[in-house]
């Protein structure tokens, strides 16, 4: 490349005569890049979290809690009658009693291990108590083994410390419990809940998330064949496609009037539950996006302002150059190149700051580390922003007539 044609030397020397303006722009570009790249990284990471599938039929499902308070309240007969009535309501695909709801943020977790005994290696997993209709109601796929049969299902009294004999686990838990085997290996094996109670793996399901969306082992989940006899019990109802909103008030009304010794509360769709659980992530994405856009505009306008100013100040010199034979494109090129030089310093500094901020975020807030390609991508974007911002003033400079050289400003 012939540097004399590109006038890098004169541009550089001219810049050195007015360092402060250039330095200000370079720092601005560097800090803007730092914020933009780290924000985009956080946004993508949150978006990735929000995309995860809970494994159940979210769109058509809802749930509610029934709390008995009457002295003659009978949890077993109430549950049996309620489920019968709900399942027979037109528009309902299926319904179960369940102890916790995926993505809701509250639930039960237990430890599981492959050998009995205290202090051995274990895996935590969320526990969902369901009956033989569970797989159909939740819409999860059994990929090995068998579903529970009605005779597997038992009633759990409050404060009961023991567990049923069979369990269905997720593929992910199977892989964690038996890391050296393929996922089918767990089928038919005995695993131990809370150190030493044996359970036989009756089936393996594809996927169902634990209730805690922030948990690292989100797909560590087990299904156990139980219905609870607590004062407060929860029903999970899956509607026929498109029927959910219509049957929700209907079911609530039906349950409330069928038994005056209890209250129906906390009826909510799974979609809303999901929205609540990810609300802060969604908010973070929106806030950071806004900040990013505004910041880029501010920086762009700053470049426009300073470039316009420097064009105005150099009107006479530009006129002189034009009079001496410089073409309009030469003038445009001059300002574009000048900005390119400043931006280069900015983005190189910005690359350092970006990584620095990420290291801080990793250490202070245990965010994941930035993927390397975000840095060159950010540099490219900021280069582009600079070039776009400076194009207008440069164009204006090119339109300065050569006659300007003869005028006093």
């Amino acid at each position, binding site marked *: 490349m012939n540097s004399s044609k590109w006038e890098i030397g004169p541009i550089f020397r001219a810049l050195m005569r007015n360092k402060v303006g250039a330095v*200000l722009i370079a720092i601005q570009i560097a800090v803007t890049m730092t*914020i933009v790249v780290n924000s985009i990284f956080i946004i993508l990471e949150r978006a990735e979290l929000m995309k995860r599938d809970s494994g159940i039929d979210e769109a058509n499902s809802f749930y509610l809690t029934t709390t008995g308070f009457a002295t003659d309240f009978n949890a077993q007969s109430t549950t049996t009658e309620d489920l019968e009535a709900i399942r027979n309501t037109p528009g309902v695909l299926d319904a179960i009693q369940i102890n916790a709801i995926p993505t809701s943020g509250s639930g039960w977790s237990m430890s599981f291990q492959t050998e009995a005994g205290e*202090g051995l290696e274990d895996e935590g997993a969320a526990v969902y108590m369901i009956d033989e209709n569970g797989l159909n109601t939740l819409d999860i796929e059994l990929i090995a083994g068998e579903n529970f049969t009605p005779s597997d299902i038992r009633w759990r009294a409050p404060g009961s410390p023991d567990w049923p004999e069979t369990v269905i686990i997720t593929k992910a838990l199977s892989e964690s419990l038996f890391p050296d085997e393929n996922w089918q290996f767990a089928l038919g094996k005995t695993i131990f809940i809370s*150190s030493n109670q044996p359970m036989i793996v009756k089936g393996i399901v594809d996927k169902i998330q634990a209730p805690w969306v922030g948990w690292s082992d989100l797909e560590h989940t087990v299904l156990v064949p139980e219905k609870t006899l*607590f004062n407060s019990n929860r029903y999970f109802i899956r509607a026929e496609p498109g029927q959910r909103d219509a049957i929700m008030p209907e079911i609530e009304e039906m349950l409330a009037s069928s038994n005056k010794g209890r209250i129906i509360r906390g009826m909510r769709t799974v979609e809303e539950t999901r929205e609540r659980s990810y609300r*802060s992530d969604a908010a973070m994405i929106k806030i950071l996006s806004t900040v990013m856009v505004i910041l880029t505009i501010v920086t762009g306008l700053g470049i426009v302002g300073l470039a316009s100013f420097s064009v105005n100040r150099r009107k006479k010199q530009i006129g002189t150059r034009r009079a001496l034979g410089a073409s309009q494109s030469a003038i445009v090129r001059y300002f574009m190149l000048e900005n390119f030089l400043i931006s280069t310093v900015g983005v190189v500094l910005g690359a350092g700051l970006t990584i620095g901020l990420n290291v801080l975020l990793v250490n202070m807030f245990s965010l994941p580390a930035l993927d390397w390609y975000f840095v060159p991508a950010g540099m490219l974007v900021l280069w582009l922003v600079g070039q776009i911002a400076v194009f207008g003033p440069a164009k204006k400079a090119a339109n300065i007539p050569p006659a300007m050289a003869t005028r006093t400003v």
Partner: protein
Amino acid sequence: MFAYYLRLAFKSIKRNPILSALMITAIALGIGASMTTITVNYLMSANPIPHKSEQLFYVQLDSWSPHEPANEPNEPPDQITWTDATNLMQNKTAFRQTAMASSGGVVEPEGQDQKPFMASIRLAFSDFFPMFDVPFLYGSGWNAESDDKRELVAVISKATNDKVFGGGNSVGKTIRVVGENFRVIGVLDEWVLAPRFYDVTTGAFNETEEIFMPFYLKQDLELTNGGNTNCWKSPEGEGFQAFLQSECVNYQMWAELPTDADKAEFMDFLNSYVMEQKALGRFPRELNNRLSDVMEWMEIEEVVADDAQIMMWLSFMFLLVCLLNTIGLLLAKFTGKASEIGLRRAVGASRTDLFIQHLVETACIGIAGGLLGLGLAFLGLEGIKTLYGEFVQNLVGLDVTMVISALLLALVSSILAGMYPTWRACNIAPASQLKSQ
């Protein structure tokens, strides 16, 4: 003279309306973003009980498994067991102390037209009310005797009183909760705590409970467990009582210890208690008891959300960019005024005069930016309310302190931004400027 400078400043601002608008907007955006995030952080980290936060201590006992700590690296669990809660409450070693638990139950109002509803319940000891400065509208808390006799007495929130009794003084009336008749002994006034420091284990910004009752009733009435229940080993035996006697943690405890000596004494008491329990075969881990005052406990429980802090630091950087922008634009502007400055110098204005004149101009821009920024901060907080929903209600109010700090921040940062350009402008040699005229 000041008025003259002010007039000059307005003239100068009007001469380059676009440049001035750009500067004001840049400052406003920076201030707006920073004030929004500072407000959220400031309210999240607010001291909810400033006059005695250093005398109230949260109690942690390391009753966890011999094989692993409750929390890495070696943190004790954030709650205690029923056994420890009741044992520690037997010896009233501290000036005041209360073990606590959260629960819930159905309230059945008397009238036929009112539906039964689910209410949140806090189980506590009589010291709870004086310890945490609980505001009463009618009546008072129960006394220590009611604790020990497990009397069916209740303190209800203002909202519950309105709902069940239609407001008014309901002390002495009966309220039916969890199937039992309770005597109302006190009605609270509005009690908004942000954070609700006395129990942050299920989130720091929950509301205060609707009904308060003596702690031991948990056992008698077999009340449900609220909050988080964590166990490192399964209960031995069936049923509710076996569960209470287990190593599961679901209870919180606070002690009021006015002096350092009290604190040291209470710590000794805790340690000797744990040693006794070790002799009984409990507490398999090394001695690891903790007393944290209110603000320390808020820190440990990470009450200020990470996201809020990240946003605050990003918005400071945003403000930095906006200020750099302003410095650049001011530099451009003042350099453009070189001939005017040269002229003023030539006819006798001193450098100090010019310095003050331009500082006044910068300050005007700063104040304009600050005012606009305050408006933006208000919008920003409204935006946060829409994005996060009702549970941030108490975290998004601008108070006088914040308004004044916003304006000060704008003024100081704009004057700082104006310093260098002003200094440059004043150092223009008059002769060189006049020559080219």
